[in-house]
């Protein structure tokens, strides 16, 4: 599955990760895995700091992903 990052998350992790996902993985589980792999970004990856987005719609952490989904993590915007 493709995971995209923006802003500070992109600078710390990169713009894109391709991760292997078991069936019925939730957004929250991906978030936990990322926080484990990038412990210095754990706070920035918290649900209150980075909103999850699938198919241009914001989703809750309990949202179940399919392998075809592209998951995006959006940190707080800075405005124009």
């Amino acid at each position: 599955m493709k995971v995209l990052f923006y802003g500070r998350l992109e600078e710390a992790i990169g713009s894109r990760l391709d991760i292997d996902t078991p069936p019925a993985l939730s957004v929250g589980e991906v978030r936990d895995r990322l926080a484990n792999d990038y412990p210095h970004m754990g706070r920035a990856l918290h649900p209150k700091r980075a909103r999850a987005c699938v198919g241009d719609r914001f989703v809750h952490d309990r949202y179940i992903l399919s392998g075809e989904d592209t998951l995006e993590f959006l940190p707080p915007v800075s405005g124009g």
Partner: protein
Amino acid sequence: MSVIARLEPNKLSAEQELAALLAQGAGDGAAVIFVGFARPCSTAGRPVDLLVLEHHSTLTQLSLEEIAAGAAQQFDVSHVRVAHRCGEIPAGAPVVFVGAMSQHRRSAFDAADYLMDRLKTEAVFWKMSRIFTSSRLVASSFPPPARVPCTSAIAPI
């Protein structure tokens, strides 16, 4: 009534945007515009060579459209025009153009003020300033974020 909101990945011409706005507003009594430029120094006084506005492929355009529509709904204006740069913007170059036309001046002033207030805090951009020395990147910095991204058009599911 026209409401135009445009994300511009290349050079933004304030003159062309103004001409396009005025061409639509024949018969109106007032036009108010604001043009924002990339500052050559940070709020801390450090020199800045490049402003980088990262955007989202769809949510950024949606946020611009929602903000422009909000101005059109809230104020007695006949035309609203927003053009916003994204990508790498050299210091001194235009970043944003907002324009509003109305029968009387107050509505156009208020609409332009509203547009800029919302664009500066709610538009889906991630801003970074970069400093170069002899073409070598020596510093990048993010300003404090304004808010968690949200548009009313995109509801959680």
